[in-house]
């Protein structure tokens, strides 16, 4: 097993109107859960499509498990769940799954066995009802998502690529997806998913890469990324609504670079050189009753906003990611 499941070196992809990905270099360690984070239009989907060899980069190289990404044998080790989901509507569930399995080199009774196993595992096949015999468009939205998910994993891929996997999932399917990601990692598989939902990324990912406007902003192991950002954040909770004086203090840019009202507490990013103790003293002096004053690691969300900012959001030219 190679060290890196994905090794992207200096990749650039231009479309007629703009550069979707510029000089991107990133490495996804084998066996990790990797988050590709970025606002809409940042180049996430383009990057994923290049990894999958759906489109070719204009320059640069992509290696999957040490082999060039256009090696036809590699595709059988990849599982892909696109952002916008859909299946052949008029086709029977089992036949769709069998077709997807055959495209990945799983054939005959082996494919049938795995389809049965998955349908039962996701309770699409019960003693009362076998949804495998129904047509896709007879299924509910949630069931269709399950079928699509089975299609992604049926051939037991070593690298699973999920493009915005949580969008449109109900809480139960989202939980099932999260459980599966954890299970895949436990079995030594590599999972890479793109998202703009930082909370999901923070909970699930070992490593992340933040990209904006087609360029990498930062990447690394989540814990290290947070440490690098330093202990410069403070969680502040006040009793009641807090005094008006506190609002003034939070707007003081000599002390506070940014204050994000999280409803139950403020996440405060200290200004460079500001002393947290001095901040605490001013707040107490203002007459507010402090419930919580804690040095915390910045959330990915904060890091993201700090690094990308509002200017990082650009209208997507390909329609998505």
């Amino acid at each position, binding site marked *: 097993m190679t060290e890196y499941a994905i090794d992207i070196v200096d990749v650039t992809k231009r479309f007629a109107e703009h550069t979707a990905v510029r000089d991107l270099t990133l490495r996804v360690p084998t066996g990790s859960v990797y988050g590709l984070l970025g606002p809409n239009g940042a180049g996430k989907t383009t990057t994923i*499509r290049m990894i999958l060899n759906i489109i*070719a980069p204009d320059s640069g190289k992509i290696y999957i498990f040490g082999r060039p990404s256009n090696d036809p044998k590699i595709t059988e080790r990849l599982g892909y769940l696109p952002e916008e989901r859909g*299946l052949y509507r008029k*086709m029977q569930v089992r036949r769709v799954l069998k077709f997807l399995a055959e495209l990945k*080199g799983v054939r005959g009774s082996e494919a049938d066995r795995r389809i049965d196993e998955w349908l039962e595992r996701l309770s699409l096949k019960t003693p009362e009802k076998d949804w495998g015999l129904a047509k896709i468009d007879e299924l509910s939205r949630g069931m269709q998502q399950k079928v699509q998910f089975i*299609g*992604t994993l049926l051939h037991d891929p070593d690298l699973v690529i999920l493009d915005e996997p949580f969008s449109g999932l109900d809480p139960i399917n989202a939980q099932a997806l999260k459980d599966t990601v954890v299970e895949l990692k436990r079995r030594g598989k590599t999972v890479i998913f793109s998202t703009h939902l930082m909370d999901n990324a923070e909970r699930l990912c070992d490593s992340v890469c933040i990209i904006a406007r087609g360029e990498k902003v930062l990447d690394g192991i989540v814990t290290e990324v947070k440490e690098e950002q330093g202990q410069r954040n403070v969680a502040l909770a006040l009793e009641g609504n807090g005094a008006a004086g506190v609002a003034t203090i939070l707007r003081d840019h000599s002390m506070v670079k940014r204050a994000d009202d999280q409803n139950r507490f403020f996440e405060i990013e200290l200004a460079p050189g500001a002393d947290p103790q001095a901040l605490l003293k001013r707040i107490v002096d203002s007459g507010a009753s402090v419930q919580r004053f804690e040095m915390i690691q910045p959330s990915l969300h904060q890091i993201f906003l700090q690094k990308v900012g509002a200017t990082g959001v650009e209208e997507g030219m*390909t*329609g998505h990611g």
Partner: protein
Amino acid sequence: MAKLWAIIKREYLERVRSKWFLIATFFGPIFFSAIIIVPAWLASRSKATTDVYNTIILDATDSGFGHRLAVAIAGDSTNASRMPTVRVVPPAELTKAESTATREVMRKEKTGYVVINQQTLAGESARYAGTNATSIADMAQIKNAIRETILASRLEQAGLDNRKMKEITFIPLDFSTERITERGRAGSGMASVLFGFAIGFLLYLSIVVYGQTIMSGVLEEKTTRVAEVVMSSVPTDTLLAGKVLGVGAVGLTQQILWIGTTYVLLKLRAPIMAKLGAPVMNFSLPDISLAAGILFLLFFLLGFIFYSSLYAAVGSSVNSESEARQAASPLMIMIVSTGVFIQPVLLNPTGTLAKVLSLVPISSPIIMPIRMAVTGVPPLELAGSLIFLAIGCLAALWLASRIYRVGLLMYGKRPTMKEMARWVSYAR
């Protein structure tokens, strides 16, 4: 290769399993047979029907003319069932007899009645009234019978005996017709023209129907985003090839079933025509040599590849069925304009128009098989047509695969011609 096979298999099985395929395959031969049987049946309508036997002859001549007319109408004196009813009436009671006969016709007991009187004997006039008065064939039959009977009685008066008279008036003329064109006698031309038309129509229909089938199949994969999943597993060229071959196989299956069942139905044509009460005409399909059969197949496959790959490109470049219809109109114009030329080519299969059209890949897959069906095509022309068509196919495939692989991933507004031209230049 296994993946190409998986795609072909899916395209083929999903379509062959559909209800639409079953219905079309079942009704196709019925439709084609109807095309051939109905004209023959209509032609048979130009012969008099059995209605003429179920008539009344009101004879006011008092000369036995009515009985002789009845025999003439029946055409056979021994068959009592074909003999019209004869009523000899005094001239004074003719009006009353006519009223009685009219009521019988109104009650549908009889089809009509003929009135013969002294003017008839003089060869001046006769009258008929009945439900079939508009049937040209029936009226001609009755009129001829009356003339024949008048002639017979005049000959009799001139002193000819019965036997001699029959000898003179019996003229069993077999009037066969043959058409002469500028190429000389057409021979059994009708059959081969019909056959050529059937071939052309079948090819035309298949290309339109299955081209559009491919287009909406591609569009479905694009709008449901299945395309992305499939493209992550197989190269787009394989996907395109699999679609064209799979749907092409469906078309071929349907045609084989159509031709097979139509052939059987035509074999059973005689009993069917007999049931319809129409005389059986001699009608034989032209013999097709194995070589010609293979050439037909080749033209169908190449023509199909040419058009369906372009249809696939159109399907990949649009986002909805209504956009697809619009975007496919240039293709539709190409096919329909070829269809317009089918008849001129049938009439003059060796003319310059036919020769040119059978070299251009846009029209050759339809026009050349038609020419082959109705006339002998020199091998050199055949080879040229095939070579140009093959080149056209390669060009269409090249163009289509380039538009296809970019188009499938492009959502949003419909691309302009300029944008599509740029897609073609993309590396991938």
